[in-house]
């Protein structure tokens, strides 16, 4: 199966698709505000932020004048275009080597698993990869990463549980530099964005990489669970303020949630989605594709 298909398929797991709901809406033959209100609700029920949903519907309203609003195909296509444009407002970063990629995010979104998948992805691109176990807080997180490193057949730099994560980062950077590694992936502990002390710890790791490895291209990706709701925006905003974000990895797209919050992240915060996790296996990670995402989303 093509990888585009995977994202699309992952999104089609539920019968309550946007297109299904839209068909219902057109059957009801509602007009005017009642129609637009319901269109807005359809978007919100896929976790699109209230503000983005309002914006999108406003645009539909402007374009679909006269009889066009009754044309289901026209409105559906229009909606797809608007959503895709929204995603494209945040351009994909170009990955240059050597690079350091640090994954950040709240607890339980799938950072460690994603490191394994991303490592595997780069290996498939014929790059050399090193992973750093900088989640020294969660019990057994280091062991978990070690298993993934083993599966992806990449080297790992790790310290004891409870040690200073910045020290792990420092060592990993030294090792990556010494060996001329193409890609250094840093796993970090999950942290709720409202906890300032933990965000400061993250900033410290950020500074260590920037200072010790200035010649590397440094990317920071926020890992977001597709089942998250409106809080995703808050997470992205705070992490962006703390360490500046270069992209988002959307995980758990193989469930029934669609991650509709990404539209506001791309549209308002201008942070692009880079990867999408679509399953539990190491190869279940795809480069994000806006067009296919929207196809699957609707």
């Amino acid at each position, binding site marked *: 199966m093509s990888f585009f298909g995977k994202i699309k398929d992952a999104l089609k797991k539920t019968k309550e698709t946007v297109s299904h709901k839209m068909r219902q809406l057109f059957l009801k033959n509602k007009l005017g505000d009642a129609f637009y209100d319901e269109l807005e609700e359809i978007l919100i029920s896929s976790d699109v932020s209230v503000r983005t949903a309002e914006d999108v519907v406003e645009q539909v309203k402007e374009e679909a004048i006269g009889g066009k609003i009754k044309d289901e195909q026209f409105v559906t296509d229009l909606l797809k275009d608007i959503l895709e444009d929204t995603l494209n407002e945040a351009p994909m970063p170009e990955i240059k080597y050597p690079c350091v990629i640090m994954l950040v995010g709240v607890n339980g979104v799938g950072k460690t698993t994603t490191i394994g998948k991303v490592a595997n992805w780069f290996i498939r691109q014929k790059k050399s990869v090193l992973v750093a176990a900088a989640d020294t807080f969660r019990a057994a997180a280091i062991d978990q990463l070690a298993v993934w490193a083993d599966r992806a057949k990449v080297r790992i730099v790790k310290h004891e549980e409870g040690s200073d994560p910045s020290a792990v980062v420092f060592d990993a950077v030294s090792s990556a530099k010494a060996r001329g590694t193409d890609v250094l992936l840093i796993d970090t502990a999950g942290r709720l964005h409202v*906890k*300032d002390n933990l965000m400061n710890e993250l900033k410290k790791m950020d500074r260590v990489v920037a200072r010790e490895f200035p010649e590397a291209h440094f990317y920071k990706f926020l890992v977001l669970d597709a089942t998250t709701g*409106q809080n995703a925006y808050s997470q992205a905003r705070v992490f962006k303020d703390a360490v500046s974000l270069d992209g988002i990895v959307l995980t758990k797209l193989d469930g029934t*949630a669609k991650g509709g919050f990404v539209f506001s992240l791309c549209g308002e915060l201008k942070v692009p989605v880079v990867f999408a996790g679509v399953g539990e296996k190491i190869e279940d990670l795809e480069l994000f594709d806006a067009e296919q995402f929207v196809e699957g989303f609707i």
Partner: protein
Amino acid sequence: MALFASLSERLNHIFSKLTKRGKLTELEIRQAMREVRIALLEADVNLRVAKDFIAQVSEKAVGQQVLESLNPAQQVIKIVNEELIALMGPSNAKLEVSPKPPTVIMMCGLQGAGKTTMCAKLAVQLKKQGKRPLLVAGDIYRPAAIDQLKVVGGKAGAEVFERGTQDPVKTARQAVEYANKMGFDTVVIDTAGRLHIDEKLMQELENIKREVEITEILLTVDAMTGQDAVNVAETFNSRLGVTGVILTKLDGDTRGGACLSIKAVTGKPIKFIGVGEKLTDLEPFYPDRMASRILGMGDVLSLIERAQEAVSEKEAKELEKKMRENSFTLSDYLTQFEALKKMGGAGALLSMLPGAGKMKLRESDFDEKKIERIRAIILSMTPKERDNPQIINYSRKKRIAMGSGTTLQDINQLLKQFEQTKQLMKQMKGGKGRMRLPF
């Protein structure tokens, strides 16, 4: 922008033209409910659930007398709040205990909801009640999940039963036998996180349920979950017959509307909430507090409770007396900061304040380090200096700065702040004379 203010402002706007008839009309209610609906959706309440809820509330609100003490906007919020509480109640349901020990609790939920950590938190809670819990490692899929349970179980002082990666159904059966033999009265089975649509893994949970007699099946849900919460809860409940729900990660700034969705579709009580990374960070669920949170009104009740825990009544009275007599010293000042720290720090307090989640005001504005610095400075003073800060001259300041590892500016700033606080207290003296924290 504080959300409560915004909802209440938005409602005020709608009612601004309200005449003094004293009754809310249908049109006004309809407009108001649109605003409430948006507030609910922004809190991640499922659309279907929000709509049903609004329909119910509208019916109750139409024709309601506007109480004299409340303005119409607050009246509507009051009704909404009460209905939310009613829907999420009754208040905190306890864990069931099996008449025939051991009581078996099975955890279930999506990946990353926080099941493994929750097992250890439950163990701590159970031990506090004098129980002997046994934790069972049933997650054989996620790498190192068994190790993780062993580590957190160890921290909780609970034995962990594991049989490596053998079939979790078999492990569960053996664990219960083991508990029987060894006299454990409660068995907590950790299971792998799974998608509700993963047929094979859902079957596994059903098999465990068939194999051992289970008292509680607790669905663990991340409080940040969005609209999909209903699908997840519905599926787990229909397949397993969930007995209760645990909401985790409520220490973030999510408004936790998923909670309402889950309660609405399953009808099962929310038994606990996870409010932090420490193993003691587990609290009973209070519907009234959750309602305030969903509406963006902050959790003022929890705040008050924490304040009461941190400051004893005697301390408060003493402080009040000192304020009255204007004999408030730097030592008292420090005590206040320590109390603040005991309450979970300025950040934790802020997160409970109305609208704080949406405000720009965040922990950094109330830097914990700043409090540490104040502490160091005051502790570097002699008792005499603490009681009479006016005697602190240049050479004393220099000594204090050396002793506390701070600068002269830091000390000047602290002394200035202290003076301001004292001034403030003087002003308050004439008023109600209630104790207040220095900000």
